[in-house]
């Protein structure tokens, strides 16, 4: 007895939706998935007609599906947006150069303009060179901080009004869990917001239209629509702390599929007690980027790399900011602390 699709009740069911467990045929699934993203965009009022939107594309499944769905919804519901692709080259051989080829193919398939910014041209360092200096433990910090600035700088070069990223429900839930485990109250408050608050110049607001889409559904969508994407794990990521949160979340999903949404719901309803110290937004004294300290994180990290002190930027370093700004040399003890690297 073939199972009928519970949506249209005519065709045979082709898959079981991970989010709800309903059995659906392909067309009903596509419609449900796209409709959910559309409702997310409309309910959160993410875009205004006439805006230029940059889609952060890495060639992976999330950003490919994002580009596809954004283009589709833009036409179907007449958002009136001008879409562009923006990509970041971190300089990881065997991973990033392959995925960039995918992005270039995407550009042709979706007929969208593309801009690629690279760490090499922005900072003078590729991730391969960074890992050689830093080791395998804290490299994700460097990559993440640099990428954020790279996206913003690329967006300014492209002159877009907003950036949208392919963060999905699993990513947001993992971030909530990770921030609880690390005790990061400041980020805990902000991480479930669907779009960032933007003040001042040099900062382009960014949003997550796929915030309530499960990773499994994104994979299913890409598979059934036969989209062209690149699927390999970053070679440097196995030791990241996020891996623990991810394994936990995957186990939770197998026990109760709605867990991912439950975690996001909890994250949205968390509130911090009054009187807890919170960082205040300012600007970096050296590069003018937004920062809550005297020097922004990427300036500190770059300084550490350039001086051969890889641990500068990992751990407490506010006291050293003034010294760095005024170009004073560090004491020998401080140098020794920052140099030691354990692999």
């Amino acid at each position, binding site marked *: 007895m073939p199972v009928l699709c519970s949506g249209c009740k005519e065709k045979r069911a082709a898959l079981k939706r991970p989010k709800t467990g309903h059995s659906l045929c392909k067309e009903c699934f596509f419609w449900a998935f796209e409709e959910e993203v559309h409702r997310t965009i409309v309910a959160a009022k993410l875009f205004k007609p006439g805006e230029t939107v940059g889609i952060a594309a890495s060639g992976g499944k999330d950003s490919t599906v994002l580009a596809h769905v954004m283009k589709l919804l833009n036409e179907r519901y007449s958002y009136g947006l001008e879409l562009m692709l923006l990509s970041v080259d971190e300089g990881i051989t065997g991973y990033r150069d392959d995925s960039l080829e995918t992005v270039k193919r995407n550009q042709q398939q979706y007929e969208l303009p593309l801009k690629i910014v690279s760490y090499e041209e922005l900072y003078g360092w590729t991730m391969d060179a960074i890992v050689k200096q830093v080791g395998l433990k804290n490299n994700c910090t460097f990559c993440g901080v640099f990428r954020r600035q790279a996206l913003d700088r690329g967006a300014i070069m492209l002159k877009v009004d907003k950036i949208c990223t392919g963060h999905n429900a699993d990513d947001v839930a993992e971030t909530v869990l990770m921030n609880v485990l690390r*005790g990061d109250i400041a980020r805990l408050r902000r991480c479930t917001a669907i779009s960032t608050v933007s003040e001042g110049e040099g900062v382009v607001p960014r949003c997550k239209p796929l915030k309530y889409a499960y990773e499994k559904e994104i994979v299913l969508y890409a598979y059934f629509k036969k989209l062209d994407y690149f699927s390999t794990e970053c070679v440097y990521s196995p030791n990241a702390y996020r891996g623990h949160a991810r394994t936990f979340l995957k186990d939770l999903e197998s*026990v109760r599929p709605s867990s991912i949404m439950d975690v996001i719901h909890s994250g949205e309803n968390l509130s911090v007690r009054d009187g807890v110290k919170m960082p205040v937004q300012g600007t970096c004294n050296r590069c003018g980027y937004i920062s809550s300290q005297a020097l922004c994180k990427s300036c500190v990290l770059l300084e550490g790399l350039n001086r051969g002190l890889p641990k500068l930027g990992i751990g407490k370093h506010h006291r050293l900011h003034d010294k760095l700004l005024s170009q004073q040399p560090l004491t020998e003890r401080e140098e020794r602390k920052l140099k030691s690297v354990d692999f």
Partner: protein
Amino acid sequence: MCQVEEDYRDGLERVEVPSVSKKCVKCKEASAAVVIRAGDTYCRGCFKEYFIHKFRAMLGKNRIIFPGEKVLLAVSGGPSSCSMLSQVREGLSLNAHKKLRFSPGIIYIDEGGVVGQTVEERRRTVAELQAMFKATGFPFHTVALEQVLDLPSSVVAMAPSPSEQPASNYKEAVGHFLQSTSSSRSTPQDEEQTSLPEVPEAHTHFLQQLIGSAKTLTARQDLLNTLRQHLLVHTARTEGYGKVMLGDNCTRLAVKLLTSITLGRGAQLAQDTGFSDARYGDITLVRPMRDYSAKEIAYYNHMFSVASVFTPSLDTKTTDKASIQRLTESFVTKLQEDFPSTVSTIYRTSEKLQTTCRSSAKAEPSDKCLLCVCALDTAVGECWLENKTIGASVTMRTVELILLSLTTDLKSLLCYSCQLTLKDMVSGGLQRITYRHCSCKLF
């Protein structure tokens, strides 16, 4: 390692492995007997002092327990609550330095019926515990969980709290108490001989059906917690106690925090894991053991012979993935091995959270969840999850549609995570009957 704002010590030094031949870090004279954290070695005497001091400091810092007040100690028989019991006993003994000043009572809730224990086993456990309670001299109450079926519906309502008692009044109250008791000697507490009343088998059977109507172990545990809390609060109210002390330790609370997040209880985190929980109005739940890690309690119980009785619960001997609570517990304990500061970081995070309420602190009773009595985190009538999910209307089968209309009223009165528990319960014929009983009790 991965904490925000963490300071790294100089690497490449030889790490000193603490061994028993080292000296105690506090008194620096006696030889060390126990290692609490890496680098903290204590001798017996200093450890005992440290342990007792933490308990007093916790109570003294928060100034919630007023002198002369009646406090109910919820003892489950496990190491944490038995440790709490022994701390209270020591604190109240006449020769204690700065003795505590409240009158405690003990309550033990017998949950053997839910777990499937035989009547013989239950009687044996209760007898063992009662012997322990008698030795303390405090009045004790033994209550079977089956009694929760007979509770009046007022248990889920929030009763008005007594007049505000700000901190300044605390000092006056202490002074007043000292004056009144300075002349008279404290009378010995009379022991109440409350043996376990005979529980009719039909009640046990019905309770098992109710718990069993939840399809997943997660929902069952959630439901059991709710029922247990209701019974605790009801007993405290009828016996005239103003406060209830729970024996949750730091490790258990860290697990509880993560579990609450995964169950969708983010809005109620501060009440679930904070020091005091005032959601019931007239009864305040207090957690004085929340600063102790499970390891410290285990060491203390072993070194100073504090007895405890093991009672099986719903998730004893189950696999890691049997329920969300079980999974979170194994996750935290495994992570703690690699990153020893995990539990304390989660604990510190919980201290910085507060309750989100959409209305003010003195919320109307209609704004509280029916099952867990916390402020609602979903607008009445709105369904957060279904707004984000297509398919509720598209893919409903006819049988479930009837049930949906029955449950819509109940769903709108529950908070997000209690809605999830209810969802796991309602489907199939038996569940409809139990649902009706449940709703009759609640209405």
